[in-house]
C-alpha cells in the first residue's frame, strides 16, 4: 500500500507541475499585452510600465516562471484587479462555501444514487428497476442550470417555501444556511445521483451474479444482507471510482449552480473573474482547481486501496 500511494503521489506531483506550466503559459498567451490587461482598462502608459516591472514581465519566460513558482510557494497568488484584494484571501473566503455545497451535493448523490442503484439491481426487470433506470436517463439528460431554474420556479416562485437565492454563512445561522443550501445541493446532486445510480446498478448486477453471492445465499443469509453486505461491498470500489471521475463534473456543476442561486462561492468567483477579465484571479482559480482535483483523485486512490484488500495488502511485504 505504501508503494502504491507513493507512486500515485509522484504521478500527481508531475501532473501538478505540468499543469502549473500550462496555466502559466496560458495566461501569457492572452491576446494583447498582459501588462496592459493586468493594469486594467484605463491605465496610463506609466502605470503599465510599472506593472510590467512589478510583475517581472520584462524578464525572459523561464525567469518569470521561476518567480511565479516562488510566489506560489509563499502563498502569494497575486492581487485581484477588481477590488485590489490579495487573491489568496478571496479564495480563503470563497472555497469553504463551495466545499459545503459540494459535500451536501455529494451526500445527495450518494444517498439517492447508491440506494436507487442497489434496489434497481436487486429488483432487476421489475417496477423499481424501471423507475430507477428512467430516473437515471432523465437525470443524465437534464442540465444543472435548467434543473436549477425549474427548482426556483417551483419552490421559490410558485410554492414560496424556500428562498430562491442568497447565502448565509453556516457559522452565522445554520438553519438559514441550510434553507438556502437545500435547493442548490439537490440540483447539483441529482445529476450525479443519476450517474452514480447507473454505475452502481451495473456493478451490483455484476456482483449479484458472482459466485460469492450464491455462497452468501447458501449460508441462509437474508436478502438484505446478501445484497447490502456481500454484493454492495464489492461494488463500492466502483462507486468510489465513479465519484472520483465525476469530481471535475462536480466542480463544473458548482460553477453553474452558484451562478443560478447567487452563492458567493468559488464557482461564482470563477465566472465573475472571466466576465470581468480579472486575470490574477483566473490564473489562481484554475491552478487551485487543478490541484484540488488531483488531490481529491489521490484521496480516491487511497479510498480505493482501503476498500480493496488486494491493493491494501500488496505492499505489506515491501513497506
Amino acid at each position: 500500500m505504501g508503494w502504491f500511494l507513493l507512486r500515485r503521489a509522484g504521478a500527481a506531483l508531475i501532473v501538478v507541475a505540468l499543469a502549473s506550466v500550462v496555466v502559466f503559459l496560458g495566461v501569457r498567451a492572452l491576446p494583447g499585452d498582459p501588462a496592459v490587461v493586468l493594469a486594467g482598462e484605463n491605465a496610463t502608459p506609466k502605470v503599465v510600465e510599472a506593472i510590467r516591472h512589478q510583475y517581472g514581465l520584462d524578464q525572459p519566460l523561464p525567469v518569470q516562471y521561476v518567480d511565479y513558482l516562488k510566489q506560489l510557494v509563499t502563498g502569494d497568488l497575486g492581487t485581484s484587479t477588481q477590488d485590489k484584494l490579495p487573491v489568496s484571501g478571496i479564495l480563503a473566503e470563497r472555497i469553504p462555501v463551495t466545499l459545503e455545497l459540494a459535500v451536501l451535493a455529494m451526500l445527495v448523490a450518494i444517498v439517492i444514487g447508491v440506494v436507487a442503484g442497489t434496489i434497481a439491481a436487486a429488483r432487476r426487470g421489475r417496477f423499481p428497476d424501471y423507475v430507477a433506470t428512467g430516473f437515471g436517463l432523465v437525470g443524465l439528460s437534464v442540465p444543472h442550470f435548467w434543473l436549477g431554474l425549474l427548482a426556483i420556479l417551483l419552490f421559490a416562485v410558485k410554492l414560496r417555501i424556500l428562498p430562491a437565492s442568497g447565502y448565509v454563512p453556516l457559522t452565522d445561522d445554520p438553519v438559514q444556511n441550510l434553507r438556502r443550501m437545500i435547493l442548490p445541493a439537490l440540483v447539483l446532486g441529482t445529476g450525479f445521483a443519476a450517474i452514480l445510480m447507473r454505475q452502481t446498478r451495473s456493478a451490483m448486477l455484476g456482483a449479484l451474479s458472482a459466485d460469492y453471492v450464491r455462497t452468501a445465499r447458501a449460508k441462509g443469509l437474508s436478502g438484505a444482507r446478501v445484497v447490502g453486505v456481500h454484493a454492495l461491498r464489492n461494488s463500492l470500489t466502483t462507486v468510489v471510482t465513479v465519484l472520483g471521475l465525476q469530481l471535475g463534473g462536480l466542480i463544473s456543476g458548482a460553477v453553474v449552480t452558484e451562478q443560478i442561486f447567487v452563492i458567493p462561492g468559488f464557482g461564482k468567483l470563477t465566472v465573475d473573474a472571466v466576465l470581468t477579465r480579472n486575470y490574477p484571479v483566473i490564473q489562481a482559480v484554475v491552478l487551485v482547481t487543478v490541484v484540488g482535483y488531483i488531490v481529491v483523485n489521490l484521496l480516491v486512490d487511497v479510498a480505493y486501496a482501503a476498500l480493496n484488500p488486494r491493493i491494501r495488502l500488496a505492499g505489506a511485504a515491501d513497506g
Partner: protein
Amino acid sequence: MNLLSIADLTVSFDTEAGTVRAVKGVSLTLAAGEILALCGESGSGKSVTAMSVPRLLPDGATLTGSVTLDGAELLGRPDRELRSLRGKEISVVFQEPMTSLNPSFTVGFQITEVLRRHERMSRRAARTRAVELLDLVGIPDAARRLGEYPHQLSGGLRQRVMIAIAVACDPRVLIADEPTTALDVTIQAGVLDVFRALRDRLGTAIVLITHDLGVVADIADRVAVMYAGRIVEQAGVDELFARPRHPYTRGLLDALPASARGGRLREIPGMVPPPYDDPDACPFAPRCGYADDACTAARPVLEPHGDGHLAACFHPSTVEAVDA
C-alpha cells in the same frame, strides 16, 4: 427412514429462447449417513437437481414435484423459511473455490457469519469455533488464517474454507458440487477425508455432484447417473461399476483412465441433446451404439434389474464390465 426424498421433480427456466426444462421428473432418496454420487456430463441436470433442495436456483426457475426433508415438504415453502435451513440443515460446497469466497471479507468473517446467523453465537465463541473448523478441514495455523483474505490463500485452502463454512453448523444434508475438480490429487484425497469424517461423526447425508468416477469409486455408497434431465441408471457403487446396464454409464466408465484401452481416453461421441426439445424417444439414442427402432419410438423408463439396480434402457447390457 429416508432423510431426504425427491419425488418426480421437474425444474424449468423461462429464457428468451423459450422454456428450458432442465430436470424432467427425477426421484431420489437419501438416508442419513449415506453418500450419493450424482454423475453426468455438464448440462445433464445434476447440479440443478441438487440445488433444488436448498432452492438455490437462478431467478425464473419453476419447480414441481416434491422435495422432503425428514418427511417435511420443502417445495412451496416461502424463501424466508428455507433461509433458516440453508447453511444449517442443508449446506452446499460449490465447485468454484477461486470465486466462491467473497474477496472483500476475511476468512474469519465469512466463517463466523454463518455461525452467528444460525447458532446465535457471540463473536468470541464464533471465533473459537472457526479455529476448530479450520483445524477440522486440515488448515494449519488456523488462528492466523482467520485474518486473511481469500486472495492470500491457494485454491486448495479456499476450497477447505468453503467446506469449513458448509459444515460449520453440523448440517444433516451436505451438497457438494464438484468439490474436488479444481484441486490436485493429494488435496482431493484430503477433502474426501473431511467428508467421510463428517459422515461418520454426525451422520450427515452427502450428495456429491461429480463427473469424476474415480472420486465416486473412492467415497460414494450409491450412484445415480443423469442424462438430459433424467436419471438413466442408479445402483450401489460396487454393483454399478461391476455391472453397468446403461450404455451411457458404460461409456462413462470406459472414459475412465484406469480402464482405458491402449492408454488413450475414450470419449463418448456426440453431444448432449439441447434442453429445448424433448422427443418421445431415448435421448441417448443418437449417440448409442445399440440404438434401434425401439429406441426412437418410445422413451425407456427406469426398471429394476435386481439388487436395487435401476436402468432406463431397452437394451440393458448384461455383460460384466471388463476391468472396472
